[in-house]
């Protein structure tokens, strides 16, 4: 991969290609390709506009309101923000640790969130366009054939998502706007009625999830030339892992694994993230570019999310998902997979893990009884880190003696993946741009690469009236020479 894509010299001679899904408020993505006079992609930038002003939205509010209000930050994974905020504020109220009941209720809620979020991708597998455009070469059309052989994908995808939301409703109180996780614990038990209803459906959900993994594995292995290389950008991987190296999506310590598989940093206490990570700023992007501080910005950037988590842990502590993790690693023959499309495979392994965790947690008596709250010496600040569906989510709060939030910092998974997504777009564009015109095929491929990371491009607000995709080509002289409009 070329290293000069980021800061091209003589930019005035480059042609600018903007791929701009114009959405209505914020949270839209926009891709800019800078071409040289020969029409080659020389620089690529992914602009994501989101999360501006969220900290100001929180600061000045009573701390106990925060776990509820942060759910307004993201309409697609509100539970992750709910739990990350509660975990951070556990420190403030001295609830270290929380009770067994609180821990298990929160875990059940969290794995319900993982399941319902990942299930949405399983549903969208019903459209081969998710994995590759309809304009893909004939050699890649087998994707459509594999999908056609599985007519139940859509139904099972919706069913899995519904089950995940039932878990959330049973633990959080409501499907959205839940209130159960509070600083210091949880404010409700799981009812026996809800437990029994969920248990009655738990086994089919595990079976459907297992089938989902098998399907994605089949897709991947059907065309390794595509799936292993498309948009691949080797990098370090970061995630929480349990103290014994197990996958743990709710709690743990940070681990950084290098692109070659070597563990570079391990056992990093999550509350020390500010010493571990630096957020770089670039003048053309609202979104920051985090990197591991002592490795520097060139060597220290990393990927997060399912692909990182499945390859970063030493094992998955549920048997079916662990078997699939081993198959995933065996496919790589000892090497890590870095291709964006491998995210889909890893995501389904995590969905299976979530289904197993839910099934195994439900009979636990700590869910239906026991102490819900803990307390201890008050602290001024707290950090909550959780593995949200899209990757590591960090909430950090300082609270004054008047109980008002003085300062906060949020790092969301899309921010962690910022550098990786930019590089993936460059790789795809450099491979597919023909040097003359912006084709639908190129647009499709760029979208597929971005989508594999599952960035949160659309936070919390989704009114109707989205604008179409507009693609503009501007030559080195600044003139618009081509424009494409894709109706959204």
């Amino acid at each position, binding site marked *: 991969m070329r290293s000069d894509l980021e800061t091209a010299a003589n930019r005035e001679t480059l042609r600018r290609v903007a791929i701009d899904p114009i959405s*209505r*408020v*914020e949270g839209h993505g926009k891709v800019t390709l800078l071409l040289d006079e020969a029409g080659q992609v020389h620089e690529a930038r992914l602009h994501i506009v989101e999360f*501006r*002003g*969220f900290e*100001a*939205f929180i600061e000045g509010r009573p701390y106990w309101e925060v776990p509820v*209000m942060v759910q*307004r930050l993201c*309409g*697609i994974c*509100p539970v992750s923000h709910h739990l990350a905020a509660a975990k951070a504020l556990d420190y403030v109220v001295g609830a270290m640790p929380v009770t067994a009941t609180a821990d298990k209720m929160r875990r059940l809620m969290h794995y319900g969130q993982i399941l*319902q979020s990942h299930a*949405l991708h399983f*549903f*969208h597998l*019903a*459209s081969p*366009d*998710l994995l590759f455009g309809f304009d893909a070469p004939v050699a890649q059309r087998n994707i459509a054939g594999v999908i056609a052989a599985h007519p139940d994908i*859509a*139904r099972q*995808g*919706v069913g899995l*998502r*519904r089950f995940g*939301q039932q878990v959330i409703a049973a633990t959080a109180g409501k499907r*959205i*706007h839940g209130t159960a996780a509070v600083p210091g614990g949880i404010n409700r038990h799981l009812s026996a009625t809800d437990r029994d209803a969920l248990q009655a459906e738990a086994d089919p959900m595990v079976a459907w999830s297992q089938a989902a993994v098998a399907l994605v594995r089949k897709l991947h292995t059907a065309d390794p030339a595509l799936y292993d290389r498309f948009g691949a950008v080797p990098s370090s991987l970061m995630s929480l892992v349990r103290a014994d190296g197990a996958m743990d999506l709710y709690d743990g310590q940070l681990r950084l694994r290098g692109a070659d598989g070597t563990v570079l940093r391990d056992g990093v206490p999550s509350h020390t993230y500010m010493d571990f990570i630096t957020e770089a700023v670039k003048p053309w992007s609202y979104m920051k570019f985090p990197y591991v501080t002592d490795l520097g910005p060139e060597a220290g950037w990393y990927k997060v999310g399912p692909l990182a988590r499945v390859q970063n842990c030493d094992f998955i502590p549920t048997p079916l998902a662990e078997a699939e993790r081993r198959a995933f690693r065996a496919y790589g023959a000892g090497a890590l997979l870095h291709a964006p499309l491998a995210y889909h495979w890893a995501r389904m392994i995590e969905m299976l893990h979530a289904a197993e965790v839910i099934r195994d947690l439900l009979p636990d008596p700590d869910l239906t009884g026991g102490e819900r709250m803990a307390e201890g010496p008050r602290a001024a600040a707290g950090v909550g880190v959780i593995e949200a569906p899209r990757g590591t989510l960090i909430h950090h709060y300082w609270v004054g003696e008047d109980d008002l939030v003085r300062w906060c910092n949020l790092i969301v998974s899309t921010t962690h993946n910022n550098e990786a997504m930019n590089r993936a777009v460059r790789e795809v564009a450099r491979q597919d741009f023909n040097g003359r015109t912006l084709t639908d095929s190129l647009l499709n491929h760029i*979208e597929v690469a971005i*989508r594999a990371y599952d960035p*949160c*491009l*659309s936070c*919390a*607000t*989704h*009114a*109707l*009236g*989205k*604008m179409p995709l507009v693609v503009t080509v501007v030559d080195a002289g600044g003139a618009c020479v081509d424009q494409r409009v894709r109706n*959204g």
Partner: protein
Amino acid sequence: MVLAAGNDARGDDGIGPALLARLAALSLPAVVLVDAFQFQVEHALDLVGADAALFIDAHLGQADAVRLVPLQPAGAVAVQSHALTPAEVLRVSLQIGQTPPPSWLLSVRGDDFSLGAPLSPIARSRVDMAWTQLCAWLDAREVACQP
């Protein structure tokens, strides 16, 4: 069934929740209410058993302040979005073997979607206008729009 999408912490995106809250205050036993940050695939399941469905959402670009129109299933479901349009929800319903109920869309123009902002004054007036149409829609289904 009345399904409303929006985020009441995002200015005029709260139009849908505002109308749903007003309807909820009437406690109408014949009307099932569904609130959401955005419409998604699971709302296709919510439609099961409904005699009729009304989707409510804020709209960024429409010229009319309030628009009530019949709704047909979309031709395809977009794959890159974290949210579905109401027409795409109906499409999902068909896709998973259901027959969606007769459905309508009540869309209300919004202008200010700032984080932390309340409904704008103009949006509040449009909510009143939309409420009239919402009640007319219920009345046509023999549901009185009063406690």
